[in-house]
């Protein structure tokens, strides 16, 4: 049996719903799976019900403990950033962008044996007033914060960073000038310069490409993705190639 459920069997949550009477087994669903689950549940019974103990302990529970108990998953961040470098108007979302996208995705990925994704990566640090701290996936940034990128080369030799903001405006952050990808040193390094956040609303996504694709091609692909499906589509570029990293910031 595969470890991950491909839909060929009911989940244990589904079985629990049936076993507790919340739902009924549907036609075609495995009664054997339900019986096996019921046997497993019956084999290891829970502690005996103790009404008085539950009520006493509930009284002693703090508000913080209750909030922690009811916490929902923390979503990954979205955010906005103000460019310091140059802006590329998103006027190329057309046949040119489609051609560029095809060129980008039909190219072979980085050399065999060097699986860049998972090794090459893009991160950021935040400077807020006199404070500085490393950015994390759940870091919430603010207007006025300065962001400095850092990367791990992971065997890659070049880097392009392109961002797209809530209005669909595409900005090339790296390289600073021209479209040739920036050569990078092996290992972990901080990129020179920083960007300062403004109070503009909406998310901005940063796309780092490590395979030598020129910045103008990356910008066209990002613009096309944004036009196609907004932030979600840009984020999903990460799924399509191994040598692309996508970073999303949340701003409040």
């Amino acid at each position, binding site marked *: 049996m*595969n*470890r*991950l*459920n*491909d*839909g060929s*069997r009911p*989940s*244990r*949550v589904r079985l*629990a*719903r049936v*076993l*507790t*009477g*919340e739902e009924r087994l549907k036609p075609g669903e495995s009664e054997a799976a339900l019986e096996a*689950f019921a046997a*497993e*549940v*019956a084999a*290891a*019974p*829970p*502690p005996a*019900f103790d*009404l008085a*103990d*539950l*009520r006493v*302990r*509930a*009284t002693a*529970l703090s508000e913080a*403990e*209750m909030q*922690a*108990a*009811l*916490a*929902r*998953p*923390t*979503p*990954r961040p979205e955010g906005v950033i103000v460019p310091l470098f140059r802006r590329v108007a998103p006027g190329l979302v057309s046949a040119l962008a489609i051609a560029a996208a095809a060129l980008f995705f039909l190219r072979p990925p980085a050399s065999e044996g060097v*699986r860049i994704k*998972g*090794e090459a990566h893009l991160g950021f640090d935040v400077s807020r007033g006199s404070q500085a701290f490393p950015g994390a*996936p*759940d870091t919430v940034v603010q207007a006025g914060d300065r962001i400095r990128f850092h990367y791990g080369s992971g065997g890659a030799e070049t880097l392009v960073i392109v961002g797209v903001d809530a209005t669909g405006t595409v900005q090339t952050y790296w390289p600073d000038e021209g479209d040739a990808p920036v050569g990078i040193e092996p290992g972990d390094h901080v990129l020179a310069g920083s960007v300062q956040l403004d109070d503009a609303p909406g998310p901005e996504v940063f796309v780092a490409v490590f395979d030598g694709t020129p910045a103008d091609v990356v910008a066209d692909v990002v613009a096309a993705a944004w036009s196609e499906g907004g932030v*979600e589509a840009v*984020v*999903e570029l*990460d*799924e399509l190639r191994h040598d692309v990293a996508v970073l999303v910031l949340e701003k409040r």
Partner: protein
Amino acid sequence: MSIPDAELSELYVRYAPVLHARARSILGNDAEAGDAVQETFVRLVRGYEAFRGESSPLTWLYQVNTNWCLNQLRNRKGHQKKHEDRRADVQPRESVEPEVDRIDDARIRALLAEEDDETQRIVVHLFFDEMTREETAVAVGISVPTLRKRLDAFLRRARRGMGLAVVASAVVWLCWTAFGGAP
């Protein structure tokens, strides 16, 4: 308003067994699973007003149960860190081909404690609740591609850990044979 005794008793009889089975699966420990059930119902008594608005008791109870179990795993990991070096910093790269079926529950539990909140829930739903990717994406509130990305990253970390285990085993074996322990 507090939960009536009869309703509390009925809910316990109906849901405690499945909660216990799930907690055993996540925590890998009977005693802690028993605690997880008790703590979940303590929070039901305290949070009855919020619970009453839920259409599915199981959904509410599983959420509370998940939070408690994940917190236990984090506490467990924090305790271990007092006595262990942080091995992840010296793990070798890419030494074992990852196969999901080879990652056992103990390895998943150990990794879970270091994951972000969203990834923890994804892993619990996929590996312990045996939900499909699509069901998990809905439960966590993300797209399926995003879920795949998180899962892929988690499996890469698991693979690195498995690589370390292989290297450690090889070192032990070499030491054993070098010092005459082998037949």
